[in-house]
């Protein structure tokens, strides 16, 4: 792993928004250590090529640091034909290639630009990396006038540049919000990555989870029996905390609801506390539900590779709901998972819904989730907000009094869905101390954790921490002003990426899932007196620390 030792102040001082003197087409690529994520293991690509022909190619040992990337000999044709095909399949791509006026409104909206000053991280220039090739290959003016119109020939260095910069975009869509034509760099990044995949250019941090998810049902490759073991450990912990042994149905048929959440929460601290939170919530309300090992992944790294791959992975949700006879799906806290569910799922896979599926209705309150009537999938924050509104949860807010919370809107639920007030409502109802970060950094204008879209890998830590500056600085602001010590979020990737981010930019702030705080305040029927939170830290000590 690349060493990263810059202090925050050194990193801040190194940021310069003045572009270099060389024009961008002649600025060479920098493939030094830490500037790129490692490529996929060949066996993962071989497996996926078998499972989904046409999307991936060229499995081999290679490194972006090498001069020779071992590209297929006809890679230029592959990119050209692939580009053409996508221009014909997506109006978005064609319009976005055509209409940009380079007004620059997006330039300083990207967290990677704010943290690095690298002009190729301005969304407009990131798109120009691709648009320049579009002009040369697909427009008359570009073919004739060439560089004068901003066109350039596709060369190996251009392809390498694509790899550098389309893997420095987290598809967070913040630029798209500010663009007067709604040009969405996420859409362009997706297309560029699809084209790179056709030449065998990829990163392992995405491809291994995709391969795992296809085979084992989740990104982490947790096999079903191991999944059950982990679940049992969690139930043990819950018993230790609450004195109550609860039940967590797994792969069981005949339940009303199937619950699907990202597997990151099964595996890693602090996600596991959020997962425990779900289990406790379901026990408290007596929800008739099951978990599944086959569909044990809410997230969808397929989204970061190829539209077909995304569809294939997502299809498991309906397939498993049908097999188990569930009427509707409850979805856990996850960012890009909800982009997929809200904007792609029914379009891709809606026809797979079995006849037993129906518009979600809360069995506890009778509330009809009309806004999910087509996809039949409800966000847990919506579900819990409804329970709270109807007074179905017995909450002791004071257990969270040691928490001074703020809320991080994850990019995808914010700008690809609009889930903004639901989690805040839940948070304010389980927690007495809550402050929002400054308004240009939250809600639809939220800043990315800089690890989205499969970039939450440690080998590019400097890139991540630079990209994390806007979020980290906003967090520091509320930490200094209000003494915020906890940032809640509704995303499993956030729960992994925000920890190094906070440690670096706002040390002392811990990261938590929303339902960890819910469960901490939640009084289970028949539980014993609680002396510790879900992390098994004693309340007494926590409160004492806060008093200091």
């Amino acid at each position, binding site marked *: 792993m690349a060493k990263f030792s810059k202090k925050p102040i050194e990193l801040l001082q190194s940021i310069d928004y003045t572009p270099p003197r060389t024009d961008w087409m002649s600025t060479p690529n920098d493939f030094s250590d830490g500037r790129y994520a490692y490529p996929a293991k060949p066996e993962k690509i071989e497996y996926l090529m078998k499972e989904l022909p046409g999307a991936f190619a060229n499995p081999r040992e290679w490194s972006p640091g090498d001069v020779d990337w071992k590209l297929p000999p006809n890679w230029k044709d592959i990119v050209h034909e692939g580009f053409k095909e996508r221009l014909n399949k997506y109006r978005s791509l064609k319009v976005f290639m*055509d209409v940009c006026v*380079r007004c620059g409104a997006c330039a300083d909206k990207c967290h990677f630009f704010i943290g690095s000053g690298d002009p190729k991280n301005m969304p407009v220039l990131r798109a120009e990396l691709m648009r320049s090739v579009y002009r040369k290959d697909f427009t008359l003016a570009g073919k004739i006038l060439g560089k004068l119109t901003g066109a350039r020939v596709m060369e190996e260095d251009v392809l390498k540049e694509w790899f550098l910069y389309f893997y420095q975009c987290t598809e967070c869509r913040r630029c798209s919000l500010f663009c007067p034509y709604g040009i969405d760099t996420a859409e362009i990044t997706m297309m560029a990555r699809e084209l790179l995949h056709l030449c065998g250019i990829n990163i392992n941090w995405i491809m291994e989870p995709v391969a795992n998810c296809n085979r084992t049902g989740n990104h982490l490759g947790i096999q079903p029996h191991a999944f059950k073991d982990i679940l049992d450990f969690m139930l043990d912990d819950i018993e230790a905390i609450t004195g109550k042994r609860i039940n967590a149905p797994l792969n069981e048929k005949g339940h009303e609801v199937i619950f699907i959440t990202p597997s990151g929460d099964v595996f890693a601290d602090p996600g596991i506390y959020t997962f425990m939170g779900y289990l406790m919530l379901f026990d408290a309300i007596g929800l008739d539900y099951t978990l599944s090992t086959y569909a044990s992944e809410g997230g969808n790294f397929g989204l970061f590779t190829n539209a077909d791959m995304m569809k294939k992975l997502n299809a498991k949700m309906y397939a498993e709901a049908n097999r188990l006879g569930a009427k509707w799906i409850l979805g856990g806290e996850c960012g890009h998972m909800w982009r997929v569910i809200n904007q792609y799922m029914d379009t891709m896979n809606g026809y797979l819904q079995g006849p037993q599926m129906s518009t979600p209705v809360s069995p506890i309150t009778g509330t009809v989730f009309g806004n999910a009537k087509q996809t039949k999938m409800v966000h847990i924050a919506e579900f819990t*907000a409804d329970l709270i509104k109807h007074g179905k949860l017995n909450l002791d807010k004071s257990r969270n009094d040691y928490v001074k919370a703020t809320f991080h809107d994850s990019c995808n639920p914010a700008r690809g869905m609009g889930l903004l007030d639901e989690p805040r409502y839940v948070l304010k109802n389980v927690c007495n101390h809550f402050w929002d970060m400054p308004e240009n950094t939250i*809600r639809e204008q939220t800043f990315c954790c800089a690890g989205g879209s499969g970039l939450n890998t440690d080998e590019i830590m400097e890139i991540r921490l630079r990209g994390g500056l806007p979020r980290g600085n906003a967090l520091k602001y509320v930490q200094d002003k209000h003494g915020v010590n906890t940032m809640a979020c509704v995303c499993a990737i956030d729960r992994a990426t925000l920890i190094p981010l906070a440690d670096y930019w706002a040390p002392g702030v811990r990261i938590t899932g929303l339902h960890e705080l819910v469960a901490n305040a939640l009084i289970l029927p028949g539980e014993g007196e609680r002396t510790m939170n879900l992390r098994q830290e004693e309340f007494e000590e926590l409160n004492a620390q806060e008093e200091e």
Partner: protein
Amino acid sequence: MNALYSLVFVFALVLIPLIGVGAAKLNVFFGICIPSTALLVFLAGFVCKIYGWAKRPVPFRIPTTGGQQEPYDTTLFTQNKWDNPSTGPQTVVRMLLEVLCFRSLFRNTAVKLDVKNNVVAYASAKWLWLFAILFHYSFFIIVARHMRLFLAKVPMPLEWLEFGDGIMQIGIPRMYMSDVLILVGLLFLLGRRLVDPKIRYISLVNDYFPLFLIIGIALSGVYMRYFAKVDVIAIKDMVVSLTQLKFKVPAGIDNSFYVHLFLVSTLLFYFPFSKLMHLGGVFLSPTRNLPNDTRIRHHENPWNDKSIMPHSYAAYEDDFRAPMFEAGLPLEKLPEGAEEEAKA
């Protein structure tokens, strides 16, 4: 450099009609042939471009949501209907705000990095919005106002427009506000491209050229009206007869008019093949013109490949049957020998 190329190019475009009409007396060519061809190219090019966009499907509904979604419980949460619409009419409002008020540009901020105090701040930056609005609306008013020179009988609303635009009664001929504002807008848009290093870095000839071209059009128009006082009666004669397909080139029209006309023709030629097509494109942007409603209503993707199926549960269970059985997980099919074992 890109700016300089563009400026030189626009100068060359000014010289062409000056020589062509002034020296070579090609009045018919510059007065009739060029503008009619330009209009035809503009119309055909525009239609082709739109057709090119229209024939491409929109596989997914991908609006960028700029506010609270449609809630399941309207008493609990309030939808931001115009920034995150979920129905057709709401989307129409969003589009109107976008097209008429430049809603997204109105959000603009400028990042300020204060290293000493360790603060990254976001200042409101509505200048771009303001000058973009000034430029576009002035352009629109000017085009509409020009109709008095295109229409044999001028309808009342256009007379009002002419009257309103000159209502300040400054100077003779009365100064049109739109003439001043379009130049102010254009100079700001040009200025920021030259002054802001970030914007200068991304600016291409494709960006400077239309700016200089439109500045050239505006200046030649201003020169004709306020300085040369060209013979508008003769010009109207030529223009209206052109629209009636009766081609006339009256004598006595100042050369500045031919410059103006040639620059406008260049703009028409250039328009459909350039970024100026954002005029049509803004209506077709899938992140703006679609409701955020795929959780509520089905959206059809015409190329959705139904042959792509998930890795099946049967294959999954085949892969992990024995350990699943060990762990006591429910199975569709027990491992071989398991039933006998259980009986025994």
